């Protein structure tokens, strides 16, 4: 036995312990990194490596994906914007120079890094996965320990395939019971963040558990883990089970045959021991969760669609009231009005949060045979998701509703490629951040699920998707 198995351990502790290369007296462990994903934004780290004259230690464990800056239209004609082109070219050059496999602009497997990883079977249970992007927490859906890192740490991993980390505290968020129809993982995530705050899980590794989590598909689990960082969590994980294993079988980079069987056995053993202790435990009733939308400029500013904009005048805490006042002003909203009165200018369906095939199906279920009152963009999570959606005819539903069906990339989630929301415009969006200016300077973002964005498109204002889903799910 390479590891002493004395005390009961959580999923997180088991994975952590398996990756400790060395420990320092003052606390941090040197962790081995199984997968390192890089994108256009990793250029600072490559520059650092060059400065130090160091090679990439493990190009075989490093994968590049072009997503943050890629255009979502007219790709074949060459990239018009010189700045964007430089970012995409730089990634290709760095990948070539260091022998890193790249899912580049023209690769049929290209897509958003956190969609491509799982889709290709690069993401496996029990792995450590890092990427210079905070939503790396997404991969935790498989029971991997996955987290975002900054450029200095990206350079460190490139050079050594390891990272010094202090062990975060353990937290379990359990969703017990059954979700109502039309309610999904995005609503679960925004609900706990609204309850605990955008820094509610700071310093913690979250394990999502409970019957409602077990019942989620891999797509739903990816959405739930994706938003861990929006509640301040260092990472989010879900114990691997049959759903996980079924998803992974036959994925291009996943093990096959006997090795897969051996792996599956190891993966199932990762689940938290029954008596394992957590530093913090939260239990939420899944059945009480309604479709959620955000009204402000932090993901914690979230409320059920049946609610009203908050009134800062009635908040006891001065800091919170100040934030609410400021957020309402930025969003152009007044206190105490029904959320369903908020008119939107456009919609966006995409991002690593909600752009997988199930997300597109949910939005299409609402939109089929209906028309959008406002313009909008639908950007699938990967080029493979795009192809599958087209095979299922989902693209036609979006186009017939009046929305634009475009290529895959980060797109309007972060606006780096030029897909932005105009100043003062209001966007119903499936993304993960409603920060000021996130979708462009002065842009106003309301976060919600794909079905809710579809409903907002139809009504031209925030709307409850449930009536539109009746008889369709």
């Amino acid at each position, binding site marked *: 036995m390479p590891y002493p198995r004395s005390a009961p351990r959580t999923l997180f502790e088991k994975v952590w312990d398996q990756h400790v*290369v*060395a420990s*320092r007296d*003052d*606390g*941090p462990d*040197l962790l*081995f990194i*199984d997968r390192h994903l890089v994108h256009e934004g990793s250029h*600072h780290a490559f*520059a650092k490596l060059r400065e130090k004259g160091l090679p990439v230690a493990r190009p*075989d*464990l490093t994968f590049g994906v072009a997503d943050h*800056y890629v255009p979502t239209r007219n790709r074949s004609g060459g990239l018009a914007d010189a700045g964007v082109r430089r*970012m995409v070219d730089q990634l290709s050059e760095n990948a070539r120079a260091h022998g890193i496999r790249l899912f580049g602009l023209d690769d049929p497997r290209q897509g958003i890094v956190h969609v491509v990883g799982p889709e290709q079977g*690069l993401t496996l249970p*029990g*792995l450590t996965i890092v990427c210079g*992007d*905070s939503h790396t927490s997404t991969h935790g859906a498989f029971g991997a320990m996955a*987290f*975002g*890192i*900054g*450029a*200095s*740490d990206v*350079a460190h991993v490139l050079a050594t*395939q390891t990272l*010094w980390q*202090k062990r975060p505290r353990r937290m379990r968020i359990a969703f017990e019971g059954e979700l109502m129809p039309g309610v999904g993982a995005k609503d679960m995530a925004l609900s706990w963040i609204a309850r605990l*705050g*955008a*820094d509610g899980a*700071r310093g913690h590794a979250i394990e999502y558990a409970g019957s409602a989590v077990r019942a989620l598909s891999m797509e739903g689990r990816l959405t739930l883990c994706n938003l861990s*960082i929006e509640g*301040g969590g260092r990472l989010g994980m879900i114990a691997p089970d049959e759903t996980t294993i079924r998803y992974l079988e036959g994925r*291009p*980079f*996943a093990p096959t045959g006997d*090795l*897969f069987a*051996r792996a599956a056995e*190891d993966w199932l053993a990762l689940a938290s021991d029954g008596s394992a202790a957590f530093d913090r435990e939260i239990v939420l009733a899944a059945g009480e969760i309604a479709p959620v939308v955000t009204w402000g400029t*932090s993901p914690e500013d979230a409320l059920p669609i049946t609610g009203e904009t908050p009134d800062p005048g009635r908040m006891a805490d001065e*800091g*919170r009231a*100040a*934030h609410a006042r*400021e957020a309402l002003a930025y969003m152009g909203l007044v206190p105490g009005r029904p959320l369903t009165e908020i008119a939107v200018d456009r919609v966006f369906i995409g991002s690593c949060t909600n752009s997988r095939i199930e997300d597109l199906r949910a939005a299409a279920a609402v939109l089929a045979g209906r028309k959008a009152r406002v313009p909008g963009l639908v950007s699938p999570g990967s080029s493979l998701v795009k192809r599958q959606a087209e095979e299922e005819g989902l693209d036609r539903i979006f186009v017939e509703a009046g929305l634009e069906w475009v290529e895959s990339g980060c797109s309007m989630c*972060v*606006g*780096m490629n030029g897909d932005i929301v105009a100043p003062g415009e209001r966007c119903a969006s499936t993304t993960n*951040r409603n*920060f*000021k*200016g*996130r979708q462009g*300077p*002065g842009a106003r973002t309301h976060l919600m699920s794909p079905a809710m964005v579809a409903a907002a498109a139809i009504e031209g204002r925030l709307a409850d998707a449930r009536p539109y889903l009746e008889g369709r799910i």
Partner: protein
Amino acid sequence: MEPFRRLEAIACPLPLASVDTDQIIPARFMKTPRSEGYGRFLLHDLRHDAEGRPTGALSLDDPTRAGARILVARRNFGAGSSREAAVYALVDYGIRCVIAPSFGDIFAANAANNGLLPAAVAEEDAERLLLALESGLAGLVVDLEAERIEGAGEAIAFSVDPVVRTKLLNGWDDLDLTLSRADAIAAFTAADAERRPWARPRG
């Protein structure tokens, strides 16, 4: 990296909560090579109007606070993205310490890697510092060895991750430390291949 021990400098109040990384540096500036400097992007959209003219809305642009090296903000500073560019913007501007009740985890790690101290104080103490600065106090003293902030009446204790503290006090760079452990990494890799033969990507 230059060691950080005691910093006596002009401080700017930033009485905002959840100043996220998208506000510290909007995404559109991140195509710029670092060598060109990121200081001019710091909190850009909070400091400029739609036409790019400075609004003077933040104390950073108050001429009497020119040369500030300390920033005091409300809770959850640096929430959001892993973009180290947020730290570059602060550091290139001249800031060496941000004082706030709490910080985004990744931001705090990035800060430490660039010699920027994230000093966490109690919520009341942050309010007290903000009030003192907004009432005319010009500067503060941040003593990392003593984990204390002086200059606004009674000294205020702050906390910082002990690992970050050691790193900043010594001006250490993780990479040099790790490269000296190449043997341990090689030994781990060999044993791990036996233990988890499935962990290598196929193909």
